Structure formats: C-alpha cells, structure tokens
C-alpha cells in the first residue's frame, strides 16, 4: 500500500440479491483516499456511491449483500476479510460515518451526552467522569452553545442543524482517521449547510482526518473537496482534482452533469441542457459503457465494451471511447469548463 494513502479500494464489486434478481450496485470500483484530503464521490441516486461508502464500513445489510470481489485496504488489513468483532474496533474509533438524516443515527430515547460518552468509554476506555467532560468539550468544538446544559437534553430538543452537529461530534469523538460523510447536508437549509461545511473543514484541519464526502451536489463538492470521483451505474467514470474535473472534464456524463445544473452566478440566458433518458436498470446493466444509451456522442463500440481509463494527469482519469485515437474529435458543450 502506498504510504500517502490511508485507504485503497481495489476492484470492489458489490451486488444485492432481491426478488427481482441480482442488483449490481458497485461494479469494479477502484480509488485511493490520501491522508488529510477530502475526496468527493458524486453521482445520482442508484449510482452506487452510498453502497461503496457502506462497504468500507461494512454496513450493507448482511442478509442480501454479495461482495463479488475486490479489496478495501486500510493499513495492513483488508476490511472485507475482517470478522464482525474486528470491524467493531474499526467502526467509530478509526473510521466513522455521518449520515444524511441525523435522526436515523441518534437514539431518540437517550440523552445526547450519553450517546457521545458511549464510544469514548468503549473505545478509549475513559472513566464516566472523564467522558462526560470530553462530551461537553466535543459539543463546544462543533459549535453548540450552552454545551453543559445541552448534553442533558434529548435529540428532539435540537434543531436539524444542531442534530447534525451532534452526530458529527459523535463521529469525531475518537478522532477517527477517516470520516465518511454521506450527504451530510442534504437535509439542511443552505445557511445551515454553509455552517456545517465550514465546521467539517475546520475540524479536518484540527484533527487531520481524511474525509470521503458522498454527495450529489456539485456546489458542495466545489466548496470543500480536493479530489472528485464521478460515479455512474456502479462505475467510476471520471476522477481528478476538483479543478481538473470542473474546468476540463473529459467524458460526456460529466459534461452532462455540469451542463444540466443552473448556476446562481450565470445570467438567465444560459440554457440548461438536460441529460435525456434515465439511468440503466442495475439488475441487468448494459454491456459496455453504461452511459451509452443517453450519450449524444455514442459510437458503435460504446455499447459493446467498457472503455479503458485514459490518463490526463497524475490525478485525472476518465473512461470514454472518445479518447481512443480512432474516435472523432468532440468538443464539450459551451456550458462546460470554459463557461466561467
């Protein structure tokens, strides 16, 4: 494993067995997470971004999840090979997760303080008094006023934004090496979202945690991420630094995403170009490039073979047949990249 990396995911393949057959949610996903960076995984619903994240935490439902292959390297270990007991020592103290809806990760019948001290006592072996003191500190750290009183309250006594702060406090309690944030601000209003994103950035600087941010919001990505991986139909179709991916995207799905979002900074004459059609059915994913059916530049080969990744820089890669030497030269729509 490369020393700069805290986590390496190699050729991950995850399926779910359902009454409708096997859903191939993640189809050979490979990426690295560097120490101290924020990697954004973006994609639409059903692209496999959450399943990828949950695979790292081993939180996919055991009953019907089939890991078809791959490895998730964290330090010396392959997380996919660990037993449930060993995973419990990783979840929380080493890798923590924040979900979209804070209410799903908080226990409504338990005071907030106890929900924080729980992991401190279990994983760090703190005494009750020590843990309580630390809980107050943590609430302060995430910007909750009157922390001494607040630890004695229940989740329903907090607003949505404050609840998400509590969840972040719990996630960071043991200073994990990796924080996975799955749509952490999607349920929040923009002003509260801005507060939470600032908070995540600040805490990352203080604690040095590496962050995997799962989101569909490209605005959020532009404001907090260092690198980006674009997922479509269970595959990473493009990855690069945030600047490379936004200003010099190299494949039509990324173009489509960027051209279909309205910009608050652009004037109203800028047309939105929707991506026609809808994503493929993952119980029977198409052979070849999964975007072929919606791609305006589709060629014959696209529907038969998934393209190799073409490398554009140290970080920037994309999977698209348009980069084959025999492919026609195609310009992205004017809305993309240079449209600033």
């Amino acid at each position, binding site marked *: 494993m490369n020393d700069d990396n805290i986590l390496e995911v190699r050729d991950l393949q995850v399926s779910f067995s359902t009454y409708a057959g096997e859903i191939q949610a993640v189809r050979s996903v490979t990426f690295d997470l560097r120490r101290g960076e924020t990697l954004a995984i973006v994609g*639409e619903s059903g692209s496999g971004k959450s399943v990828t994240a949950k695979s790292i935490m081993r939180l996919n439902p055991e009953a019907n999840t089939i890991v078809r292959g791959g490895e998730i390297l964290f330090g010396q270990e392959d997380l996919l090979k660990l037993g449930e007991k060993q995973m419990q020592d990783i979840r929380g103290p080493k890798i923590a997760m924040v979900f979209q809806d804070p209410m799903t990760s908080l226990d409504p019948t338990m005071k907030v303080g106890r929900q924080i001290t729980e992991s401190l006592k279990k994983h760090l072996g703190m005494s009750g008094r020590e843990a309580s003191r630390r809980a107050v500190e943590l609430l302060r750290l995430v910007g909750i006023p009157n922390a001494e009183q607040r630890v004695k309250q229940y989740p329903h006594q907090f607003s949505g934004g404050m609840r998400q702060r509590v969840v972040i406090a719990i996630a960071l309690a043991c200073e994990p090496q990796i924080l996975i944030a799955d749509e952490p601000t999607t349920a929040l*209003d923009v002003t509260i979202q801005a507060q939470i994103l600032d908070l995540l950035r600040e805490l990352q600087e203080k604690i040095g945690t590496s962050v995997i941010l799962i989101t569909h919001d490209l605005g959020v990505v532009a404001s907090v991420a260092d690198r980006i991986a674009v997922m479509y139909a269970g595959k990473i179709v493009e990855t690069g630094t945030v600047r490379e991916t936004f200003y010099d995207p190299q494949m039509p799905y990324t173009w489509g995403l960027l051209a279909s979002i309205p*910009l608050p900074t652009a004037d109203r004459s800028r047309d939105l170009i929707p991506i026609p059609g809808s994503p493929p059915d993952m119980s029977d994913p198409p052979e070849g490039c999964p975007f072929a059916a919606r791609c305006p530049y589709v060629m014959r080969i696209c529907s038969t073979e998934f393209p190799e990744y073409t490398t554009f820089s140290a970080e920037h890669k994309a999977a698209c047949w348009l980069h084959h030497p025999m492919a026609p030269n195609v310009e992205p729509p004017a809305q993309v990249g240079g449209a600033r």
Partner: protein
Amino acid sequence: MTEQSSNGNGAILEVKDLKKHFKVGRAYLKAVDGISLSIKKGETLGLVGESGCGKTTVGRVLVRLYQPSGGEVLFAGEDVHRTEGEEAKLLNRKMQMIFQDPQASLNPRMVVSDIVAEGIDIHGLAGSREERLDRVHELLETVGLSKEHANRFPHEFSGGQRQRIGVARALAVEPEFIVADEPVSALDVSIQAQVINLMTQLQKDRDLTYLFISHDLSVVKYISDRVGVMYLGQLVELADSDELYANPLHPYTRALLSAVPVPDPDYESERERIVITGDLPSPINPPSGCRFRTRCPQAVEEAAHVDPPWREVEPGHWVEACPCFT
C-alpha cells in the same frame, strides 16, 4: 404592510396582506403573516426561503387548500376565498398545483390515465370516452411520456416520469395559473433539468403563469422572472430575478445568497460567506420589529422597536427597509 403591486396592470393574481395562522395548543403559529404581492399573466414568480418560512403555506392558500386568517387573494379580480359553487369549481380548474413528492401525490391504486383524467371528469371536459382517452394521450405526449404509459400504475415509473405525470394532471384542466411547490427538489440533477425545461416550454406554449416555490436558489433564479424572499412568514425582498441576485439589499437575502454553494471551485475558494448564526426563531412567537434581527450580522438596537416598512427602493425592487441598512 403597504400594498406593493405597482399598478395592478396585467396582474392575474393579487395577494393583499395575506395571513395564515395555525392554532397550536393555545397559541397561534404565524405561518404567513402579512404578505402582499402580485403576479403578472405569463410570468414566473419564484418564492424562496428556508424550511418553516411559510412559502408552502402561501402556495396552498392561493389555490384554496387553506382558508386565510386575514387578507385576500384576487384571481382575475375575484376574491378566491369568497367564491362558492360553480364559480369556485371554475377557479379550481384555473388554478392548479404541482407537488414536491410525485410518489406521495399520485394515488398508487389508480392507473395513469385515471389520474390524469380525474380533473377532466370532475369538470366534464370530455364528451365521450374516446375524447377522454384522446386527451389523456395528448397530455402524456405533451409532457414527454407516451400513450403506452396510460394503463400503468405510478410505481412503474421513475421519479422524473412521475413528476411528468403530475404536470400532465395539472395541465389536464387547462389551468391559467400553476403553483409548483418544490417540483424538482426530489429529482436527480440530470432529471431536474428535463422537468425545468418542460415547465418553461409549457409556459411559452400555453401562456401559463407560475408561482414557483423552492429552497434551491439556483433553480429559482433560472426559472423565475421575479423572485420573492421569505423569512418567518413575511416577504423581506422582492425583485427581478437578475437584479435580486446581483444586488441583494436585505441582510437575510445577502446571507442566503452567499450560502449557496456554486459548482465552480475557483469562485468557491475566493468568495466570502456571510455567516448567519443560530437557528430560525419560533413562528409562534416571532421577534418584534425586524424578524431577522436575532440572527442578523448587522443588527441594530432600533430594529427591535420598529416594523420595517415595505418600500420600493428601485423600480420593481421591493425590500423590508430595516433600519440596519437604510
């Protein structure tokens, strides 16, 4: 609050000092507390604000899903909450609504043709079964679906397609005014653009007037001619879309706009955010004077004692003139 529509010319809808208070125990939750605006025929008025600001309640009062607690709504000069019988039925036909969650707003036990034709049946707009079916087919094609979809159930469709069904249902009764309450918020971005473009195209083709309610400021800017910003049951600013985004005056509008993340990394790294602290106060007991003063980064003492007047600072640019910036 003073009246604000400039001259009433061409206004299809006029809202005057509208209030909607909900009884909560012994107290009243002031969801909408004195809003005046007018919407011109053929335009799109966007209404933005954070959850709990009352934007959805405004939409629902307008289409008569709620009775107002005060004020009035005039549609083509007629007070919509004082009409009865046939007149009321006609108003229901002229004013339609598109909801946020296409899953929740379509009856799962009805096939698409019955969902779309429900309004046609109620208002007796089709003379025969064939005509009814023709209308349904035509509507489905108008919104980008096909005839074959008519006999399917809502669960057989994707989110974007369901929202198209919702649009077809609204169009079925040939409305003039549509309240669209977060119509694209539940959709993925690539699908969002499809529905937005559909709505703008329909507006052009059928001369529709929209009230477009959303918390997504980028979408609202794109689709709206004018935009109103709500905070705690009141309008704080209203202006032409481009003007509002280029030249916001009210501290709340400015904070709200500065919080919107822009999908442009260079812009994001250079921009300065106006951070507003704290949470929304309770609409049961809103702050006196300027309602935003408890979270306002530039709050002044005086703002607690005076109700800021609703003032036109530039032609067409209205704002609650709080002493903190005037």
